[in-house]
């Protein structure tokens, strides 16, 4: 057993990491689906979209071949409509609400149609929004993730001069750094960020970290308002013995490396255990398998009924041949010569419902051991608790607390996205950015 890279041929990598939802070949194909749309009134799909994209409208616009109008419809509600069309868990959002489900029929492939439109818009570089003349007001935004970009775009449209401070050297946040390679490519993420910024009036300062290179006090002094869209940090620690052994990796860095460094350079074990059952865990497990791991086992401390990922995602993992062991928590990682060889697991059972309403897992005391050479941690992420405490921002275990106007306890400092909700989806962060922009406009005018 060993952790190795370069397990497959170039062609096998290509196949394994091909776009999971291929796009339409042409407009005829898109129109076949667009024409199936019933054009519902007060449409359930629209209501199920966190950014309230007018889905029937943009689909109708595809069927009338008004693709530019369709793009404007999408981007007016969701400036990351292109990325969302590839990464949203639509089975629990718009497509899950499509009325065709009630006829036991396939829902309209809303994401695929949205991708059709937005890809054309990006390729043609359609400038769909005109920035109002500068108002002279300035807003600082921390974090160039979905929340920050969405906030900046909405503000720039209204003539606000925005400066984004981003600690990394690329924009897009977890869209660029976290999401699986078979969903979006690094190139796409870069293109999307550039497309959003092409409205003008948004200056992004990369490699600028709040708390290190800049201070909140500075920003508050220089700008009319500050928006924090800093997301959440690294994968949650397991806090079990053996976590420091070679072979225990963080899902997000693992996923990022696949994206950034090329498939063949990323090492993966023969027998991999993935801890967690959220979207990140699924992405880590399936991609480990696709990199050539012989055996991938996912461990989750509750049951399928409580799992955070959707059935569709679970199916992807199962179809990739990942094994799933429910009601299991990691207890200890064991190794030889500093390298992982075993994972000791506790068997769990379900107890009383916890604050999330889900029945909480209780250790039965029974254990079993898995032979593994790699452990991927994907049991959620930890907020930047220290930074937020330092900034004296009111928070709940590191999740920033905001009021109904997206405002933190510090005057003129607003926040949204994963930094506030603790880690949801891109689409929620985009909506948070819009809400933040609206609140900031109310605040400064």
């Amino acid at each position, binding site marked *: 057993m060993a952790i190795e890279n370069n397990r497959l041929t170039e062609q096998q990598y290509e196949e394994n990491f091909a776009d999971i939802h291929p796009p339409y070949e042409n407009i005829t194909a898109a*129109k*076949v689906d*667009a*024409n*199936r749309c*019933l*054009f*519902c*009134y*007060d*449409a*359930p*799909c629209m*209501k*199920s979209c966190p950014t309230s994209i007018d889905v029937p409208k943009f689909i109708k616009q595809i*069927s009338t071949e008004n693709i530019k109008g369709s793009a404007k419809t999408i981007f007016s509600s969701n400036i990351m409509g292109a990325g969302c069309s590839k990464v949203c868990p639509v089975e629990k959002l718009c497509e899950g*609400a499509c*009325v*065709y489900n*009630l*006829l036991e029929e396939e829902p309209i492939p809303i994401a695929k149609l949205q991708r059709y439109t937005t890809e054309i818009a990006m390729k043609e570089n359609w400038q769909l929004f005109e920035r109002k003349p500068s108002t002279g007001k300035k807003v600082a935004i921390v974090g160039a993730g979905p929340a920050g970009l969405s906030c900046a775009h909405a503000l720039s449209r209204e003539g606000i001069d925005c400066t984004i401070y981003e600690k990394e050297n690329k924009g897009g946040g977890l869209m660029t750094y976290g999401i699986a390679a078979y969903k979006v490519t690094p190139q796409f993420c870069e293109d999307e960020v550039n497309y959003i910024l092409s409205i003008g009036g948004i200056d992004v300062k990369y490699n600028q970290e709040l708390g290190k290179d800049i201070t909140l006090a500075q920003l508050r002094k220089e700008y009319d308002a500050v928006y924090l869209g800093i997301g959440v940090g690294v994968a949650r620690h397991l806090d079990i013995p053996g976590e420091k052994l070679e072979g225990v990796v963080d899902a997000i860095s693992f996923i990022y490396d696949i994206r950034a460094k090329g498939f063949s350079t990323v090492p993966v074990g023969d027998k991999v255990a993935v801890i967690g059952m959220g979207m990140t865990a699924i992405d880590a497990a399936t991609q480990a398998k696709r990199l050539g791991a012989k055996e991938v086992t996912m461990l989750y401390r509750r049951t399928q009924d409580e799992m955070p990922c959707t059935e569709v995602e679970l199916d992807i993992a199962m179809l990739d041949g990942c094994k799933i062991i429910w009601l299991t928590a990691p207890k200890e990682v064991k190794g030889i010569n500093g390298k992982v060889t075993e994972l000791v697991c506790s068997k769990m059972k379900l107890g009383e419902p916890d604050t999330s309403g889900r029945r909480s897992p209780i250790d039965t005391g029974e254990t079993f051991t898995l032979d593994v050479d790699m452990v991927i941690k994907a049991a959620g992420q930890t907020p930047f608790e220290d930074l937020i405490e330092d900034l004296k921002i009111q928070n709940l275990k590191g999740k920033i607390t905001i009021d109904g106007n997206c405002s933190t306890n510090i005057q003129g400092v607003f926040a949204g996205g994963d930094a506030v909700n603790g880690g949801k989806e891109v689409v929620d962060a985009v909506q948070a950015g819009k809400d933040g922009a609206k609140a900031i406009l109310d605040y400064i005018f």
Partner: protein
Amino acid sequence: MASLHSNFLGISSPNPYWLASAPPTDKKYNVLRAFEAGWGGVVWKTLGSQVKNVSSRYSAVDFNGGRMMGFNNIELISDRPLDINLKEIAECIKLFPDRAMVVSLMADNDKKSWHELIKKVEDTGAHGLELNFGCPHGMTERGMGAAVGQDPEIACMVVEWVMEAANIPVITKLTPNVHSVVPTGRSVVKAGTNALSLINTIQSVTGVDLDTLVPNPYVAGKSVFGGYCGPAVKPIALKFLTTIAQDELTKTVPVSGIGGVSTWKDAVEFMLLGASNVQVCTAAMKYGFRIIDDLCDGLNNWMDEKGFNTLDDFIGKSVDSITHWEDLDINYHHIAKINQDKCIHCGLCYIACEDTSHQSIKIEKGNPYNTYTIIDEECVGCNLCQLVCPVDDCITMEEHRVAPEYINWIEWQKRGLPLNDH
């Protein structure tokens, strides 16, 4: 099993489906393929003086992803040499003696031309003649086609010439490019035509190319009015057919129904409204001759289900149910009802009634699904919601008579009953 056998003026065919006079019937090759596929008969592509066609020739109207909901052409009558047509007609008859062979004619506007043409066609052994008084383009400019059909007097004169020479049954094909087909219909029946057929194509412009700005079909930067047919024209054809089936004089002759027949259901509707058989063009041009299978099969199953043994058992059965507006029963009332178990919450009924009808549907907001219910007191029973609902039998119209007795508009006025109740 019901019999689909059809007898039209003594012209027998194994089923009531003829191919209308058009490209599907313009040569032996096609006609033999049609007969092999099972078509009951053909009306051979119109013969007459020599013509020259242009390119392009067709255009269409698509709707919501469906192609050729309406079809349009600017073709003329047969552009093949007359003697070849005649020879091929005779050969087809020999190879398929049990199928109907009717030949469509449009001679130049003089008696001699008509007489000569009829003689030649009868020599082929054809079973009947169809007079093309309908073609709306190309031939009208030469005083033929619709130019004849639009003028009852000219039509009468031509039919009289034809009847002097014809020894086989004569069907006169009417143009719909008139406000009523009845005047021409009456005048050709008086002149002795043995039967009528309708409709030919309707003058149209199907659309304009939004890049070139030239309407279609495109011929070197220009276009002309064409003849419209296909599913889109069926309702108009049925209306004209009904007026012929209801007129005291025209109803005395059999009618061959044409215009948008695509399925066995369409055929049944034409026959219920008085057609003795039907002719099909566009549906065959879109899908080929193989559609004849379901045209026959569906008709057969429907007849078995309804207990009709022969076509005559149901031909014309619906003619009398189309009446005058003043005779409608004002005390009849029905109200929409939504079956909540079937409803998929699309809201289409609601927005249609709310924006454009009588605000008779109540909306209760839900997430993500709203609930829609009918406000009985407000519903005027217009059917709109039922028509827009995408789920079969989800909205039904329930009868709620205002009063038991029949009362029509004339009586209503006489009694001074209230108006404008909605």
